[in-house]
């Protein structure tokens, strides 16, 4: 579980996060949504410790991030897995070496044990034969799956994903969403996903935090988001004709 209280973050004059408080539950896919420029990426990077907030606190179970020493912060980060928007795979390494990297770095496993673990996670993300390829030889969807494999190879307690299905076709995007949700349940981890893809919201949004101009404007589940009257949310969700129809459908369901 990750608890966030009154988080503030500025860059110079620009006040990006304006007192966000929320809680991300363990074993659930938690989504941060909002328009571009609403502060989603800054919020996610603050959760990861890549940005230092000026005010507020972030608790990882019983550990308050700002009160940890540098060594404790590094130890905590070893419990995190991250899937970056552009995958952020090490382009000079093969897919196998990319996935093996956290194991080589932080465990005392033998080479055979590491290879076995890499095999397991690559099979888990449906890439059983991609070991010797370089990231540049893999498609966008494959790169995302490798990034997920690398993020989970060391059994993290927290999984963060920044726009995991951006730039993917709808079918691959749904596959990636479902894969993340399955992994979240399977490993019982706290997953936080940053997205503005409404399909993801519908598919896997067990807990949704909606940001607007650096504030938390709304939170709830994917069932509740289509029923809320919150103006900020409705403006965002029903900007497309498709979701206007989805809303009508839900309203009709309620009436019946």
């Amino acid at each position, binding site marked *: 579980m990750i608890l966030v209280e009154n988080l503030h973050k500025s860059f110079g004059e620009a006040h990006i996060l304006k007192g966000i408080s929320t809680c991300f539950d363990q074993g659930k896919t938690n989504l941060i949504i909002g328009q571009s420029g609403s502060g989603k990426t800054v919020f996610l990077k603050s959760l990861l410790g890549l940005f230092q907030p000026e005010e507020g606190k972030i608790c990882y179970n019983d550990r308050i991030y700002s009160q940890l020493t540098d060594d404790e912060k590094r130890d905590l980060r070893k419990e*995190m897995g991250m899937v*970056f928007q552009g995958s952020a795979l090490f382009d000079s390494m093969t897919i196998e070496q990319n996935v093996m990297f956290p194991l080589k*770095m*932080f465990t005392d496993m033998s080479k055979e044990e590491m290879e076995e673990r890499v095999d397991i996670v690559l099979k888990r993300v449906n890439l059983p034969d991609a070991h010797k390829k370089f990231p540049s030889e893999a498609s966008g969807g494959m790169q995302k799956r490798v990034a997920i494999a690398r993020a989970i190879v060391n059994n993290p307690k927290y999984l963060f994903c920044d726009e995991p299905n951006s730039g993917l076709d709808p079918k691959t995007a749904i596959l990636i969403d479902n894969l993340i949700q399955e992994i979240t349940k399977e490993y019982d981890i706290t997953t936080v996903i940053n997205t503005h893809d409404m399909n993801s919201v519908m598919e896997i949004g067990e807990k949704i935090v909606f940001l607007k101009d650096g504030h938390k404007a709304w939170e709830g589940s994917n069932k509740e988001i289509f029923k809320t009257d919150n103006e900020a949310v409705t403006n965002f969700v029903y900007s497309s004709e498709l979701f206007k129809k989805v809303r009508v459908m839900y309203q009709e369901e309620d009436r019946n």
Partner: protein
Amino acid sequence: MALFYYMNYLENIGRYFLMIGEVFRKPTKWSIMKDLILKEIDDLIFNSLGIVVFISFFVGGVIAIQTALNIDNPLIPKYLVGFATRQSIILEFAPTFTSIIMAGKVGSYITSSIGTMRVTEQIDALEVMGVNSINYLVFPKIIALLIYPFLISIGMFFGILGGWVAGVFGGYSTSAEFIQGLQSDFDMYHVFYAFTKTFVFAFILATIPSFHGYFMRGGALEVGKASTTSFVWTSIVIIILNYILTQMLLG
């Protein structure tokens, strides 16, 4: 406005020294670091051998020809060609000017490779994993460049060889005269001076381009700009330190 620029320079100098401090904190596992160092030795040293040998050989030749052509007084001995070639190569060309050439080759490579890692969030990925990214990226380069003097000594050898080839085959000096010049008034301290400079320049070559790559912001275009800035600053610092070290060691 001028104050802003001064503050900016001071801030960058401060950040550079903080980065140097961070290089030696929280070291990466030796089993991984060993491979990184070997890779950097290959990329930074062995891949530079060709260009260093090529440039040294021809510059040595040019020094020999120019020295010979400028000796028009019959009282000046012919062995001066070999002597001047040796002194120029050992004291200045090999340690300093090869380092400036390397600032272009190795420095740009370091800045662009680290800068690309920054742009593509690979450095963020290292940080999120709990890796000290500065140690992981910069330390192997510093260690690899510790054998930079080896490269410079090869540059010295080929520079003098180039001088000998140009001097003897160009008809400016006999082989015996050239070799006499090479051996004349040889001072071992000059070699010590040259290698002291080389060690300092090696550290600069590893760290300033790394700094420009690591702290760059923006996209692909900015990677190119950072490489250019890194070359300019590495060259400036090498030239200033060359002056200071010459004053300290020879003055």
